[in-house]
């Protein structure tokens, strides 16, 4: 069989040891697949979604209940978005725990981190597009957090919401960011990220003299594994979508009258939990930015993993980076669990 365009996107051969599931976890590839699914389902939703405060929630009801298979498409879009954040996080953890961010891959690590941020922002803007009582609290509290930023907070708030309180301009801006600004950014970053994987020499392995296991697999084999991953991810998405519907709530009657659950979306529950500790700027903006900065600096401030230890889990030479990431991940998980508990 002659290689197809799809095969051409892959290197001719890659190291066998580093292309195993238990090494890559398949997370990066799955993220690409999920982005494609999100694009396809999102385009379908565009035909029915109406981005105005009085129509948005009802147009989602139309999609969910009345458009043939609309509910399934929306549920797939929802579950793909949630899964994207999880596999992106898993991908990040894998890269740090295997020391794969070492030069020359430092810049691509930053691209990946930026992609992760874009995925979170896409998830949050998509969540807000529901414009129902389920998102009201998070929208109001989330945008108000912007105001607490010294000097530029109020200006940023107006830039983000288009007014002095969430309303039609806010929804239009979130819509534009979701379907255009952030999506375009994510596509550019994503293509760049994948290009840099190839440009930086493919998956991280020890340099040839230090390489013990010299076995390689062909791109056809790699493509088969990717197809298998896509089949399983696709099946999981469809099953989730068929049996667990995406959240929906009654339309917002008055943006100034808080109704519905006072809960952030699950990926911001850790921030919500910290907000209970005091100053909103410190805990809601500053600390998350510090976390982001620490993540971004991992390739630059921690010892570079030894060449001989590349391409395997938990190299001894970058223990400090592993420990820092493990602590951050554990704290976020614990805070998320506490944040998800019903308010006492």
């Amino acid at each position: 069989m002659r290689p197809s365009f799809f095969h051409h996107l892959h290197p001719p051969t890659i190291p066998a040891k580093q292309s195993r599931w238990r090494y890559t976890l398949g997370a990066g590839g799955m993220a690409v697949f999920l982005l494609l699914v999100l694009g396809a389902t999102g385009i379908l939703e565009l035909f029915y979604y109406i981005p105005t405060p009085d129509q948005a929630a009802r147009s989602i009801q139309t999609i969910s209940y009345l458009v043939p298979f609309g509910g399934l498409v929306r549920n797939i879009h929802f579950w793909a978005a949630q899964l994207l954040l999880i596999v992106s996080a898993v991908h990040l953890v894998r890269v740090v725990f295997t020391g794969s961010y070492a030069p020359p891959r430092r810049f691509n690590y930053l691209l990946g981190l930026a992609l992760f941020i874009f995925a979170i922002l896409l998830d949050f803007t998509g969540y807000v597009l529901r414009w129902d009582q389920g998102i009201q609290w998070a929208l109001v509290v989330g945008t108000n957090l912007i105001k607490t930023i010294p000097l530029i907070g109020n200006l940023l708030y107006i830039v983000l919401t288009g007014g002095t309180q969430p309303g039609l301009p806010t929804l239009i801006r979130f819509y534009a960011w979701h379907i255009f600004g952030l999506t375009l950014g994510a596509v550019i970053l994503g293509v760049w990220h994948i290009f840099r994987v190839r440009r930086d020499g493919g998956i991280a392995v020890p340099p040839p003299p230090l390489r013990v296991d010299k076995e390689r697999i062909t791109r056809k084999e790699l493509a088969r594994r990717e197809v298998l991953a896509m089949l399983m991810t696709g099946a999981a998405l469809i099953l989730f979508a068929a049996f667990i519907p995406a959240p929906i709530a009654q339309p917002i009657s008055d943006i100034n009258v808080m109704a519905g659950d006072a809960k952030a979306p699950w990926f911001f529950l850790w921030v919500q939990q910290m907000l209970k500790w005091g100053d909103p700027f410190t805990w809601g903006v500053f600390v998350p930015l510090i976390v982001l900065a620490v993540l971004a600096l991992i390739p630059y401030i921690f010892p570079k993993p030894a060449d001989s230890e590349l391409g395997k889990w938990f190299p001894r030479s970058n223990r400090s980076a592993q420990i820092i990431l493990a602590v951050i991940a554990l704290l976020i998980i614990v805070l998320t669990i506490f944040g998800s508990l019903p308010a006492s």
Partner: protein
Amino acid sequence: MKRLIALGSAILLFAIVAAWWTNSRQPKPIVLIPTLTGKPEYCLTCHSGLREISPSHPIKTFGCVICHGGEALALDKNLAHSTLRGGANPSDLSVVQENCGGSNCHSGTAADNNDHIQRVMKSVQSTYAGAIANILYTFGVEPDLTARFGIHAVTDDVITTTTGVPALQVFDPTKQTNPSVLKFAANCLNCHINAQPLPGSQFDRLTGCAACHTPLPNLGEGQGVRGQIHELTTAIPYTQCNTCHNRGNYDLRTMSFIQRTDQPTTRLQDYYQPIAQFTKCEYTLDCIDCHTRAEAMGDGDIHSSMKDIQYIQCQTCHGTPTQLPQTKTLTNPNDIAFRLAQLNPVVDLKLGDTILVTSKGEPLWNTRVLPDGTYQLVGKATGQVFTFRPVIGSGCTQNGLDQSSAYCHTCHSVQR
């Protein structure tokens, strides 16, 4: 690897079939586009078995949402019901203006007889002002029997009767100190159409307009039929009135409600309490055959007592030994009598018919003066036809000025 891909494909196929299966189990949406709103509603997807609420509210014209609220497009029960106004009962007085009001509906003007909501909000049925005023006066809190407090606050800018009061404040038990008044507040604020009924099937009714206009079949305890009743009617049987009236008495000493203890099985026994005195027409007819809409729903004024609004007497239909009852020949096709007769078509009222009217000129549209000088009344709830004679020409010697029921009951009362 190829086997794995085949297996993966099979799993994906299974997922697609499963999704198809769950999708096919979703109810097939049933759309309704009522002419009044022009917006699609999908309530009938689940509620297709519900009967039309009344001929005056055809579903093709009104749909569901204009009266009930709710999410017209949602096919999930909780979401669809999340924005219902007044739950299953849109006529609860807390939401009635939004649901049943509007100048073309039930909060129009007194001139076009569409001011139902304004009248009911001021009526003693909803303010309970009479009972509150009585108790406050009896226990020395207020100097007289004039109503000052109601279940809800209400004002009246246009007073048309001598007994009308300009405004009521909310009766707030926390501002009371008299122990009997406090007991009254705790035990006795059930007998108005804002209140949930007392427990027991004999008390079972809804609130607001539906307290009267949605008669509940008395099926006994725990039959769970309330939510299924989708009916508004002006043919209200006495049993509906009796979910509040004739159910017992308030004991002023203990300030509690003493329920009647008899277990009536016949209309004669059931209609009034054992101590009551009444005559034949009072239990063979239904309450609304004599008592008018102004008496039941209020005349637009805030009154201090039920007595101020209850004015139908025996003479309204029968006259006195010296006077025939008042009548009116229908010459105006827009006469309210025709509208009322159309709402409850037990009689075929025609232009030129002569009907009885009350002392305030309200038409007793279910009556007719027959050519031989006798009268005919058709039961609004039963459709039964009754004929009766005026007092003139009978052997009655009653003074025409003494017309309260007690005087008539001296001779005309039923033994049970």
